[in-house]
């Protein structure tokens, strides 16, 4: 994986020094609170319900054991002993004190990490397939592209005061595990008819209040032209994106209101100018970045026996096929029933770091589904890995099953929330745990407000927590999809008060079990085959489909 050179190192150190100075200038009044706010945000510091929240960047979700241990130390020293892995492959600390933040940033810089541009109206953390470099279905590893975009977008002078945030995701596999179609720019790596590498460029995807699937702006962009093309898109957006209304300021609104054809025309015209002045990265530099992501030296000729008992059961959900036949991709579930989805204690972080070091070729990933991945584990080591995970409370064998729920922090943490999401996730997980293997693959995602940080729009069953006259009310959506067959979930009818939610989900699951062809047809396929009607009827047996006012 990429490691910092002198330039990167000098940059993060200077950045921390600058932020210390900016905090001092905020205190002495040189900077007003309004002026300090985007500076604070572009250094990852949010103000939330109870405290500041620091969002640390984990570029394209890739992290090594030294870095993971440092996060554990930070959690213990400056926070309450845990961190939260997010739907954009970052980690959040919920309780830092403002005066400690420059020291935390220094501790991050010590291990080649930072919190730069994880918030603010700028290009955010570039996310990528969490199975990159390990999955067998990959055309090309997306991470060198993500690293290139990270460098290009860091402190980019033109694009730090955009109309709104800007999110880019990259997939190197036709099986899109990076939710690219719900990003401001989504890049899908592919080859043209002559085998030359390039990207399909999608623009204007996004969730939140007005969920939209992105549109193809360029079906094939040659690989070397990526950066000037991104500059063209960003420039058009920066100039023309709406600045009058925060909720209409994303590029998806510009595409929706102007039309993809006209936006494409403007981008292609800007691209001609940009390409001339800024042809992109030096090819030798690109090659050096790609070399940093060379695969590890896999162990050859090591025998292994099939797994037995609990380990075998765990492996059916928590391992995925690796490009090397003797290896597996391990997903460590951070969704233990009863725990907070996506959270890990400092001790658990150390366990994962140790496992990566001993059995994982020194690599870990964070997935947008709030789990941690060990991408390269030899099958001979799976039993031992499983044993260690079990002991650390990380052995939940539920990846992709009903209790593997994505939930935003919700009203327990977030000032924007209209409902609590974590307790709801915990209750649902506990309720269905015993039956989840029978039920099969099932993606529930919960958002505690309309901003959709839980990605509920692209869940098989999405749950949106709202406030109706002071009471929490949960709106269900069905049939969402975060993959290459991306779809926004549909609303079958009115929302449910908290106590009616689980009975409603029970009816939904029961109906699915009755109607599925056989256990190999997952819920989402049955939904696509049968349509909304039987599931709507199950949710509203008394026909109560009136819209929530």
């Amino acid at each position, binding site marked *: 994986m990429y490691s910092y*050179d*002198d*330039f990167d190192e*000098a*940059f993060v150190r*200077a*950045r921390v020094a600058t932020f210390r*100075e*900016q905090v001092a*200038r905020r205190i002495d*009044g*040189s*900077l007003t609170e309004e*002026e300090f706010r*985007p*500076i604070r945000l572009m250094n990852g510091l949010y103000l939330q319900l109870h405290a500041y929240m620091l969002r640390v960047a984990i570029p394209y979700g890739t992290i090594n054991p030294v870095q993971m241990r440092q996060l554990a130390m930070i959690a213990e020293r400056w926070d309450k002993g845990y961190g939260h892995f997010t739907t954009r492959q970052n980690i959040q600390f919920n309780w830092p004190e403002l005066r400690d933040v420059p020291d935390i940033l220094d501790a991050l810089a010590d291990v080649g990490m930072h919190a730069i541009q994880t918030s603010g*109206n700028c290009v955010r953390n570039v996310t990528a397939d969490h199975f990159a470099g390990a999955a067998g279905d990959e055309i090309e590893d997306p991470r060198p592209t993500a690293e*290139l975009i990270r*460098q*290009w977008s*860091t*402190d*980019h*002078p*033109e*694009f*730090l*005061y*955009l109309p709104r945030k800007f999110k880019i995701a990259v997939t190197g596999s036709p099986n899109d595990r990076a939710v690219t179609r719900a990003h401001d720019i989504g890049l899908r790596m592919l080859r043209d008819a002559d085998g030359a590498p390039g990207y399909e460029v999608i623009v204007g995807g996004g969730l939140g209040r007005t969920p939209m699937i992105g549109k193809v702006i360029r079906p094939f962009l040659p690989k070397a032209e990526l*950066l000037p093309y991104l500059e063209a898109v960003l*420039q058009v957006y*920066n*100039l023309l994106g709406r*600045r009058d209304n925060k909720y209409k300021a994303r590029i998806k609104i510009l595409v929706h209101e102007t039309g993809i054809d006209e936006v494409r025309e403007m981008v292609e015209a*800007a691209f001609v*100018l*940009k390409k*001339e*002045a*800024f042809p*992109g*990265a*030096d090819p*030798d*530099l690109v090659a*050096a970045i790609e070399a940093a992501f060379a695969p590890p030296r896999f162990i050859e000729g090591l025998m292994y026996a099939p797994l037995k008992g609990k380990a075998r059961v765990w492996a059916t959900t928590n391992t995925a096929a690796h490009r090397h036949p003797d290896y597996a991709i391990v997903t460590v579930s951070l969704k233990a029933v009863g725990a907070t989805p996506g959270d890990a204690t400092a001790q658990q972080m150390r366990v994962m770091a140790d496992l990566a070091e001993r059995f994982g070729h020194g690599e870990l990933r964070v997935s947008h589904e709030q789990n941690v991945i060990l991408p390269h584990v030899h099958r001979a080591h799976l039993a031992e890995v499983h044993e260690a995970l079990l002991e650390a409370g990380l052995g939940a064998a539920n990846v992709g099953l009903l209790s593997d729920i994505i939930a935003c922090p919700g009203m327990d943490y977030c000032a924007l929330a209209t409902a609590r999401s974590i307790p709801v996730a915990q209750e649902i997980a506990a309720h269905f745990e015993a039956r989840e293997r029978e039920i099969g693959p099932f993606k529930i995602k919960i958002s505690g407000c309309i901003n959709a940080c839980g990605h509920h729009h692209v869940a098989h069953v999405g749950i949106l927590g709202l406030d109706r006259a002071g009471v929490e009310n949960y709106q269900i959506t069905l049939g969402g999809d975060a993959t290459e067959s991306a779809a926004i979930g549909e609303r079958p009818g009115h929302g449910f008060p908290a106590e009616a939610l689980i009975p409603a989900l029970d009816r939904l699951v029961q109906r699915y079990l009755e109607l599925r062809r056989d256990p190999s047809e997952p819920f989402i396929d049955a939904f696509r085959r049968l349509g909304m009607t039987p599931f709507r009827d199950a949710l509203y047996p008394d026909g109560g489909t009136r819209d929530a006012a």
Partner: protein
Amino acid sequence: MSVIVTDQGFGPETRIAAFLTLDELRQSETAGHALDLAPDADPEALAPFLDRLALIRIAFPAFSDGRGFSIASRLRLLGYRGRLRARGHVLADQYGHARRAGFDEVEIDAILAARQPEEQWLRRANWQDGDYRARLRQKPAAA
């Protein structure tokens, strides 16, 4: 009283020409003029007249409105070689970005200059350091 900020710090106004309107610019047949641009200006409209301009001043009504950075970039891409000035609510923290985006100088009012005195701007005069975008164009250092 305005303050003009450059890499050398605070200085007085150095412009000689009066600011024209776009119509006046179109009708003029001489060079060396100055022009004010609002943040919603279309840089393309200026393309035929760039050689008549010595100074283009782009407004920043709010520091959070970053359109001026793209207008500056676009003008440079269109071949403008005269002076570019960012004027208005521009913070010392944005000085380096302004220079890298193609601006030559920043114009602020006396109130902002008092609140963000010269040394805060001079600390950003090293705007060529830590420039990732420029670094991408270079060959990697020999191992």
